[in-house]
């Protein structure tokens, strides 16, 4: 049950971030760095199907995390789900064509060990 819920939490949050990032790439950048164009961009994004799919993925991840916390302590749940950093970085490279060099990989490794120590 624990492994199943950890998988759901990680898959949901990674998929949510990837889908949201994809939705925002399609929207383009705000025309200016002031509030009205930013709000217009957000409202446009909220109507995109990729964005709505990301909300579904986040919701699944959130409820799985709540279920996990109902029988495992938070000091287990947070580091267990930190493995998502690796998958998300790798998938950002594959699905979003981001260039992830050695410094970003090293950063991801340090962050994962740090999150495990902190939780």
């Amino acid at each position, binding site marked *: 049950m624990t492994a199943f819920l950890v998988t759901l939490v990680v898959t949901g949050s990674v998929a949510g971030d990837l889908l949201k*990032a994809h939705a925002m790439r399609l929207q383009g950048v705000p025309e200016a760095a002031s509030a009205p164009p930013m709000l217009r961009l957000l409202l446009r994004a909220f109507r995109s199907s990729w964005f709505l799919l990301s909300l579904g993925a986040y919701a699944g991840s959130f409820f799985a995390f709540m279920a996990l916390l109902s029988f495992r302590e938070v000091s287990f749940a947070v580091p267990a789900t930190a493995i998502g950093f690796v998958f998300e970085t790798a998938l950002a490279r594959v699905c979003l064509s981001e260039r992830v060099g050695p410094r970003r990989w090293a950063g*991801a490794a340090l962050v994962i060990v*740090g999150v495990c120590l902190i939780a």
Partner: protein
Amino acid sequence: MRFKTNAFLVIVIVSNAVGNVLLSHGMRGIGDISSFSPTALAASAVRSLADPWVLLGTGLLAVFFAAHTLLLSWTDLSYVLLVTSVGYALVAVLGATFLGEHISASRWAGIALISGGVALASSTPPLTTGEER
């Protein structure tokens, strides 16, 4: 563009960390949710929504979500993910400062490692796909 990116990163990190700490502070004041019956859950939800700390925390988390969403329109996901993970360290420090939580030696080591990882990731270009926008 770099200034806008950095400003949004600060908003994302601070609103998420402070929002979570305020929410945690407010929810502790509400008391334990001892029963999961619909009536008890509804009563807890109403009590928590009437709490100013919970409302403020929820408002800040909404700011976090909007800023994070906008940031992804001009910044790499892998960059945002790693740089904003400094929030884990910030929550630990805020929890110790305002909620009286203990930070052990291993947690300090974790904070140091996360900060090192964030420093490494933030030395990479924020956008690596297509033209710099």
